[in-house]
């Protein structure tokens, strides 16, 4: 998902160092569905896992503004422009809620930003794809925000209180994102042949990357079990992906556009859609930094950071001067 959890290594090493009694008491609280709060004792690995997951999630929200921001000045009407601006602004807000949730665990904003800019921290692979036409803005709202909602709703019950609370705020705002995207797709699919073709083309390009947002298949995501035991995660990657396919395919049918998967079929027995093999090589390539837009996304973020440096410094200097005057 926004936190595809691919750079998790050696999380079990720290556990040996933690006191066994504390660990058992901690797990008992989790099992009793108690929430863990910032100053409570927690295993180092739990803390590190959360810092990584929440900061990856925050970075995804921040980088995720770029593909859509690309169309802000070219939105087809003032109405669309206002809506898109509000959506992109929400994503900035989501990033900020999440950064502050991560900071409760003892990391700093500066450290997280530095890790994003240096390429050390990951963000969701989906934001490394380009937005070539206006229909892509529809497809992102409908599919990418749709997939995000699927993942984020269970995170509202995450065992870590500050993360869960941030997710509640975020989920409240996401459904507007998905609906405005679906509305764009609906307008296009009811429009001219050319507009309908645009909608189809966007679905063709965004469908598979959206399925990849849920992360590797359960057989290949070895750290899921620990996250499940800690109740950071409530459903497996494959379970969430299946839910997404099940709800989204009928929506595509309503739009009258075709999901680009020859193997897609409804299984009346299970009540689920069966779908084709995901190209995991593409997924790993994008994650490794070789997607269509990886370099562009980081360069743009770095430039924004650099261009804002004088503002941060000026505000700092002003506050210092002002503070001195108040103290005098």
């Amino acid at each position: 998902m926004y936190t595809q959890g691919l750079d998790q290594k050696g999380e079990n090493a720290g556990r040996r160092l933690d006191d066994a009694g504390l660990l058992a008491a901690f797990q008992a609280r989790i099992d009793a569905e108690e929430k863990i709060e910032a100053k409570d004792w927690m295993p180092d690995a739990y803390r590190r896992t959360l810092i990584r997951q929440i900061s990856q999630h925050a970075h995804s929200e921040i980088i995720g503004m770029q593909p859509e921001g690309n169309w802000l000045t070219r939105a087809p009407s003032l109405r669309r422009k206002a809506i898109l601006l509000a959506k992109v602004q929400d994503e900035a807000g989501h990033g900020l809620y999440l950064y502050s949730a991560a900071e409760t665990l003892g990391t700093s904003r500066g450290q997280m930003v530095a890790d994003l800019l240096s390429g050390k921290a990951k963000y969701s692979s989906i934001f490394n794809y380009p937005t070539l036409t206006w229909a892509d803005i529809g497809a992102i709202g409908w599919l990418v925000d749709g997939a995000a909602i699927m993942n984020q709703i269970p995170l509202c019950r995450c065992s870590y209180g500050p993360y869960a609370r941030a997710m509640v705020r975020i989920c409240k705002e996401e459904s507007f994102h998905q609906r405005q995207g679906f509305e764009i797709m609906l307008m296009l699919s009811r429009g001219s042949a050319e507009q309908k073709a645009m909608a189809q083309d966007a679905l063709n390009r965004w469908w598979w990357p959206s399925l990849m947002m849920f992360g590797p298949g359960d057989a290949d995501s070895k750290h899921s079990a620990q996250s499940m035991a800690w109740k950071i995660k409530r459903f497996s990657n494959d379970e969430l992906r299946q839910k997404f396919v099940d709800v989204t395919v009928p929506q595509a049918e309503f739009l009258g556009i075709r999901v680009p998967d020859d193997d897609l079929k409804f299984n009346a027995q299970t009540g689920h859609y069966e779908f084709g093999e995901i190209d995991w090589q593409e997924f790993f390539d994008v994650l490794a930094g070789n997607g269509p837009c990886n370099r562009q996304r980081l360069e743009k973020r770095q430039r924004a950071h650099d261009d804002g440096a004088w503002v941060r410094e000026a505000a700092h200097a002003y506050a210092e001067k002002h503070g001195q005057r108040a103290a005098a």
Partner: protein
Amino acid sequence: MSQGNTMDDNEWPLYEVFIRSRAGLSHRHAGSVHAADSQMALDHARDVYTRRNEGVSIWVVKSSEIIASDPADASAFFEPAADKIYRHPTFYEIPEGVENL
């Protein structure tokens, strides 16, 4: 509540944000923001936490100014209240037939 240990000395301080959602309700913790000073903290809190009319009043306070009880001592700290069940109305037995009590 955040306890960010600032690794970057130039980082703006952290403020905790409390929002009153409408008159008649208490302010409630919403999250935190970084800001260079208190006016900027209010402006950021407004932009980050009240984009959909979630508030009619905002308090911000520097995170470093908050004094909190220690969760590790919670059981001892709150223990004095634990054995005073006579503070609850259910402690008292009222005979049948007595009303309005």
